């Protein structure tokens, strides 16, 4: 049994019904595949879960945090929902666009950084909120952006 299958197996045993482990299995598979879920990752999850690939795909396509396309080594996510929008999220997005030379949804040519817009991240009181590689930076002003990009590229 591969490490991955064993790990998924352990997770399945923690739930009254093993199917509940599907989200955790997808997350683990994504981590093993460089931050996204190529078709073979979905097959691996299907095998480890004893489910059909279509059942895995149905779940993987539903949730925003499963990446079904390759992403950069780093990911910068900017919240543009109401509270962040009201205090200048757009200017923060623009600063990242300028520093990275890409638009939201794109990855820099060197494959280093993906820029993305997100819905409310639950940091509205510390807006504008930027999430870099799952870590919250709050608040971020446009003038903070060059240093963040430098750090990622450094």
């Amino acid at each position, binding site marked *: 049994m591969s490490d991955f299958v064993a790990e998924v197996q352990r997770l399945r045993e923690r739930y009254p019904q093993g*199917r509940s482990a599907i989200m955790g299995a997808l997350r683990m598979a994504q981590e093993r595949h460089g931050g996204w879920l190529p078709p073979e990752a979905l097959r691996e999850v299907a095998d480890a879960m004893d489910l059909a690939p279509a059942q895995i795909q149905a779940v993987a396509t539903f949730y925003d945090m499963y990446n079904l396309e390759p992403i950069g080594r780093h990911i910068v996510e900017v919240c543009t929902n109401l509270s962040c929008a009201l205090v200048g999220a757009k200017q923060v997005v623009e600063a990242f666009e300028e520093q990275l030379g890409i638009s939201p949804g794109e990855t820099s040519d060197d494959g280093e950084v993906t820029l993305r817009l997100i819905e409310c991240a639950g940091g*509205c009181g510390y807006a504008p909120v930027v999430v870099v590689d799952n870590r919250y930076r709050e608040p971020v002003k446009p003038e903070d952006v060059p240093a963040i990009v430098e750090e990622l590229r450094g």
Partner: protein
Amino acid sequence: MAELTVLTGADERDLTRLDEYQAVGGYGALEKARAMPPEAVIEQINEAALRGRGGAGFPMGRKLSLVPPPDKRPGPAYVVANADESEPGAFKDREIMRRVPHRFVEGCLIAAHAIQAVEVFIYIRGEYLAEFLVLQAAIEEARLAGLLGDVEVLVHRGAGAYICGEESALLESLEGYRGQPRPRPPFPPVAGLYMQPTLINNVQTLASVPAIIELGVERYKELGVESAPGTVVYSLSGNVNRPGNYELPLGATLRELIFGCGHGVADGRGLKAIIPGGSSVPVFTPDQLDVALDFDAVQAAGSYLGSAAVIVVDDRACMVQLALRAEKFYMHESCGKCTPCREGTRWLVQLLEKIEAGEGTQADLDLVVGVCDRIEGKSLCALGDFAVWCVGSYVEKFRDEFQAHIDLGRCPYGGESSIEGVSAPSDQHTHTAMAEVPA
């Protein structure tokens, strides 16, 4: 300073640590509750009239009483904590989990005792990684100290979907399916997780339970208002000088929160609108500053307390743009299960885009209202209602501004609105494939 019941002690001590939490009496309520028969615990929560903090304000005691006792149920019962917090404007559960994780865990354990469950699932939104780690550490500490007893507490991470905050969608997601709401009845206390009796409550609701047991019903009821005792952590954000979470007794007014705690509107601007309960609820105007922030008072004034997330909007924001940004969120988050919400949100976005661009006609504005009517109350879950309460109320309260876009053939802010051109992540993943509405 009024007495707190949720974040109590967190300013003075590092309550993420078990020893510190126990030093202020932590887990004392659990001990007390476990010495009581389960029905007596339910009775206390009932008498304290604790209302759910997740949005609907449903009495927790009623939910507890609806869970059949062990001899009347076919299998196990479960406690599920809703830590999916994704309502735009809300960030209170995050603070509770970060700062008083043990109080939340203690509340879960008391609830488990009350319904005689031995399994607790905490569904936390996937983005809350730091909070997940704090919570895991707290649970581990409690386990090592023998506080969990025979109860298993499992933290389940979500993966990015607002709809999974809706309780039946959350249960679907937790079972390993797409997070789409279930038709009800049956309600979760009867048939919830794995179709077993399930108590599902918000993080803050559960974190409020220890204070009830600790202080006793009478003292607890001295806080807040008759119809909603206790305190609430209000999330204050938007154009305000001091945004943040503020725990106050229920019934504090918007004025106290925004001007007292929040030090008023930022940059010396004028107040234009207030969203009292997260982006989903109908908007208030400045003449409603004296509305008390409790469930019934806010409802009597035409909105909902929701998740007690107050968003302050100053006079620089164009309301059509705000409506458009809000609606894009609901379009993005619609799970696609039912037609009015799936197609209607898309339709509203297209109409609002047209109006904002100055290309809207009178008929388009009427159609916005018409589409709202055709979604509200006709969708499977409340997300459909949320998607129209915001837009519908903006049109109702700020009709002049919508009208001006049509009369002038452009946005009256002429590019100077504070939220001009803000984009939404709608170009990425949506939960469902949607057809273009013909122009």
